[in-house]
Every structure is written in structure tokens, then in C-alpha cells.
């Protein structure tokens, strides 16, 4: 009996291996745009049944690493690759990774303060002070100055941050580095930093859970996460001096300023962007596409997808709380598609 079971199992395995593989393209990278990428690849597959793009959100750094090792066909990242990382890919894989911005997103400060039901306003220095551990109580003078008339309790602030490395942390710390020289020198910007104070939650849900459950706490999450979970979040003071709440319009405006001076390789940070109503903690997110794809079928599929993404795909953005790309960026990107050989 066991012999028969064993042989059947081997046969099944054999067939599994022998079946011809459909045109599957594997990609991995950032979790931040994960939801919209999943929707895009699903829609695209419905429109083009012979193309399967399997995207897995393992993190921006993960996407860069897998692209460098050649285990995926393309990657995705919330942060632009550094020159060193690009050189690494060129050396190991003999192609240059091209950055294609896909959508825009925002990161919001979310909080849970006893007795406060109105929206709180945060200036950059205040946020930096809280996350540095310099501002320790909710009724600190700095917070009170930003929020006149709000009854803030005399309670300790519990800070929540990400424990896992993430593009979200990178953008948030990038913003803090721009508005606070002390943050820049003491902590710096990276996917993973040495947080001076606070509890680490794993992923957005870890931070959100921490904030929800811990009284008098504050954390940072992606806009989409706050919206989907109906969490309250505050507004942030931008470079122009206005307190701006993150939404479709304010995030788009942050990109509009950058669109004017977009570098050719699209690697740009738009935190603390100029603009009257620009939301200061905004970011592009990029697909990292090789500029040389040997497999003709894969190349066709990827280039067709990119064109679709820049046109029809942008329509999905708002529904999932992302902002679509400004038109000037799109037209510049279309030229970059031609660079893929």
C-alpha cells in the first residue's frame, strides 16, 4: 500500500514539474504600494490572460536585494536606489535598473490622546522633538503652541515606531531630517534607525495597534492604512507654513513642485516639498525595471504593462488612497520606457 502511495506521489510531482510554465513574471518589493500593485496585476491579468505578474510585498530593501541577485524580473521600492546599489546591480546582473514612479502616497501622524477629539496640528520641529524624546508630555508648550485652545492632558507621550525596516520609516525619518538638524545629526534617515525612544511595532498594523491600544500615544502610518482602518490623524505644517492634512490633493501638490525639476532618472525625494498646500510627508514609489531584458516575451509584457500602468492604471489610485502621478511626470516616464532594450 505504502509503495503505491509513494509511487503515485512521485508521479504527481513529476507531472507538476513537467507542465509547461505560463508566462509568469515575478516581482517583489515595497509593501507601501502593495495593495494597488496587487489590484493592477490582477486587472492586467484579466485583460491579458497570457501574462501573469506575481508581485510579493517583501519590503523595499528585499526588492532591491532580489533584483540584485536576479531572483525576480523586476523590483519595487519606496526609496530611490543609491548609487552604490545601482553599481552593484550593474556589476552582478549586467543591466542598469530604471526607476519608474508609479503612484504617490503620504505618511500621517496618528495619535490616541485622552479627551482630545479634534484634529491635532503638528509642526516639524514638534514631531522631531517628540520622536527624539525631548518633548515628553502632551501639554508641552510646543504642542500647545500648534494647537491653541485644545485641552491637552498632562500625560507622558508614548511613542510608537516601526520595528521592521521599511520604506515608510525611511520617508518619515527623511522628513524629520529635513526639518530638524538635531534629528539629522543624532539619528538620520534610513529604513531602520536607532530610535531614541518608543516601542517598536511590526508593520503598519503593529504601530496602529500600539497607538489604538495605548492611551496618550503617537505613531506614524501610511495614509492608506489610517483611512482603511478609520483612524484619526493630524495635520502637519509644511514648508510654506500651513498646517496640511494628507489627502489626494495635498499629496499630488507635493509632487507637482518636484515634477518641475524631475531628474532624468526619477530619483527624487519630495518630503517637505514647496507648495502652499503641499503635504510635507509625501513620497513617490518606484518600480525598478532592468534596462535590458533578454526574454522577448517578458520584455513585451513588462513594457506593455508599464504603458498601461501610466494610463489606465492611474485611475485606480484614488480609490485606494494613493495619488496618481502628475501628467508631466507621466510624459517623461513614457520616454524612459523606450530605453528598455
Amino acid at each position, binding site marked *: 500500500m505504502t509503495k503505491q502511495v509513494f509511487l503515485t*506521489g*512521485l508521479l*504527481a*510531482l513529476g507531472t*507538476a*514539474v*513537467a*507542465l*509547461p*510554465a*505560463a508566462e*509568469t513574471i*515575478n516581482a*517583489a518589493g515595497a509593501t507601501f504600494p*502593495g*495593495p494597488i500593485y*496587487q*489590484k493592477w*496585476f*490582477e486587472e492586467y*491579468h484579466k485583460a491579458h490572460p497570457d501574462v*501573469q505578474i*506575481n*508581485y*510579493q*510585498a*517583501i519590503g523595499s530593501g528585499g526588492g532591491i536585494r532580489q533584483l540584485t*541577485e*536576479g*531572483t*525576480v524580473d523586476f523590483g519595487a521600492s519606496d526609496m530611490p536606489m543609491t548609487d552604490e546599489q545601482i553599481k552593484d546591480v550593474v556589476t552582478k546582473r549586467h543591466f542598469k535598473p530604471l526607476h519608474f514612479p508609479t503612484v504617490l502616497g503620504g505618511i500621517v501622524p496618528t495619535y490616541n490622546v485622552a479627551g482630545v477629539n479634534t484634529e491635532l496640528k503638528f509642526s516639524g520641529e514638534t514631531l522631531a522633538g517628540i520622536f527624539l524624546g525631548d518633548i515628553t508630555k502632551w501639554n508641552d508648550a510646543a504642542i500647545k503652541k500648534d494647537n491653541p485652545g485644545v485641552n491637552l492632558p498632562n500625560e507622558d507621550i508614548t511613542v510608537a515606531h516601526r520595528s521592521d525596516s521599511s520604506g515608510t520609516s525611511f520617508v518619515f525619518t527623511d522628513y524629520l531630517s529635513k526639518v530638524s538638524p538635531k534629528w539629522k545629526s543624532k539619528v538620520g534617515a534610513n529604513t531602520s534607525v536607532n530610535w531614541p525612544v518608543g516601542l517598536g511595532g*511590526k*508593520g*503598519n*498594523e*503593529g504601530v*496602529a495597534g500600539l497607538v489604538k491600544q495605548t492611551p496618550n500615544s503617537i505613531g506614524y502610518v501610511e495614509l*492608506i*492604512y489610517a483611512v*482603511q*482602518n478609520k483612524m484619526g490623524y493630524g495635520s502637519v505644517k509644511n514648508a510654506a507654513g500651513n498646517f496640511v492634512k494628507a489627502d489626494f490633493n495635498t499629496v499630488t501638490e507635493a509632487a507637482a513642485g518636484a515634477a518641475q525639476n524631475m531628474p532624468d532618472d526619477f530619483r527624487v525625494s519630495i518630503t517637505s516639498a514647496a507648495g502652499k498646500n503641499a503635504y510635507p510627508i509625501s513620497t513617490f514609489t518606484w518600480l525598478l525595471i532592468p534596462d535590458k531584458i533578454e526574454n522577448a516575451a517578458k520584455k513585451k509584457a513588462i513594457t506593455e504593462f508599464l504603458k498601461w500602468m501610466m494610463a489606465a492604471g492611474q485611475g485606480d489610485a484614488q480609490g*485606494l488612497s494613493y495619488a496618481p502621478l502628475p501628467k508631466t511626470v507621466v510624459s517623461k516616464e513614457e520616454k524612459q520606457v523606450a530605453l528598455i532594450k
Partner: protein
Amino acid sequence: MDRIARRNLLNNIMLSLTGVCTFLTVSVLFVILGFLVWNGIGSVDWNFFTKLPLAPGELGGGMANAIVGSGVVILIAVVIGVPVGFLGGIYLAEFGGKTVPMMIRYTADLLNGVPSIVIGIFAWTILVVPMRHFSAWAGGFALSLMMVPIGLRATEQFLRGVPNSLREGSLALGASKTRTILSVIVPAAKQGILTGLILGVARVAGETAPLLFTSLNNQFWATSANEPTATLPVMIFTHAISPYEDWHRQAWAAGLVLLALVLVANLAARWVLSRGVAAQRG
């Protein structure tokens, strides 16, 4: 109170305490099961077993590919891990001397204690990177590394449990050692070995970390074992950490299904074992 009464009182107190300990430890399982059922039972529907996962916000998706994928990955793990555990256990129990078996046992225990994430990273380094793609093979290999120590231990333990009289009888009849092992000792220890192997499967069925960098995950059906494959533990992980309420419910449902499958495997192991024991007595 005289000494005897005091000792009797202590007796009663301590024995009741042990009962309390048992109650506390066993009740944890019921809490877990209850929680999963409460939160996940609503999402365990026909769609769950037949449809592919859908993007967040779209209803009617399922985890059919993850259920099959888990099956494929575990099958690969079994094909690799069971022979190694079984034959290795035979070596340790029947053939080995003193030092070599001790070394092998020690390293097997070490392997047992390695964090699952390190095993995943190891499998990534030696399989995924050279092959240049994620695959169910790599995932199965990583899981087999975690299965082998359990199978090895169980096989050796139950083979050693077979009375020497059986061995000596067979050898006295002129059978070679190999024939003795194949026809006499292994059948006698068959049930115990099977239990060990099934427990090994149960343990790896729920492991997530080794699969994250090896079989990755897949929104679609994987058409061969050479592609990234969806599995239940990884699906649970990605759905549970997402922002979406219906994905959370699906995660609980997947957890319930996974646990149910493991429960069935465990029950099967116990049933086979008890039948075997009864048959031996009779």
C-alpha cells in the same frame, strides 16, 4: 495539628495544585481554538477552498492556491525529509558505534534548535540564489531541514524500543542484519516511526519564516514546483498584517483551516498508533 494530618493536608493541596496546572495548560488550547473559530469561521466558505486570492476590497476571494501550495511544499519536504530521518534513524539505532552516532545526534539536535528564519535564509542562499528564482523546491527543502531532526529522533527511539529478543531470534534463523531490519524490526516499530514522521509534518505545516524567502508567495496558480508558490502560513502572515478588515478575517479562516488539517494529521497518527499497539498485543 499532628504530623499525619499535616502531611495529609499537604498531600491534598499539592495534588489539587497539579490538577490546576493541568487545567491551565490544557485550557490554553481551547482559548486558541475558540478565538480562531469565533473570528474565522465566517470566512470559511466554498469560495475559500476554490478561488484565488483577490485584491483587497474585492469579496469572494479564497485561498485555493495556498491550500494546494502548502500540500505541494509539504510533499516535497516529506520526500526529502522522511528518507533522511528514517534511514538515518536506522543507522543510529542499528549500525552505528559510539562516536559517530553521538556526533550525528548532537548535530541533529542543533539543527532542531536553529530559528526557522535562519533556516529560511540558509535555503535562500544555497538554493534560491544559484537557481535565480523562488520555488516550491526551495521551500520544501527548508521545511525538510526542520522535519529531519524529529523523524531521526523518533525512528531511533522506537527502533531501540524493539526488544532484543526479536533481533536475536531473526539472526538465529540465519537472516542477515539488513533482512532483520527490513522484515522484523521496522515493522515492529512501524507505528511509532509513523507517529514521529506525522508529528514532523504537523510541526512544519505551520511554519512561516522558512517559506518567506524560499517559496515566497503567489497570487496565481503556480504551474510547476519551480515557481513561487502560495502557502497557507505565508498567506496568513501577509493577510494578518494588512490594513483590510476582510483580509484579517481571511487570515483567521486560513488559520482555522490550517489548524484543522494539522489536527486531522495528529488524529490520524494517534489512531494508526493505537491500532498498531492493539494489533501487537493481540
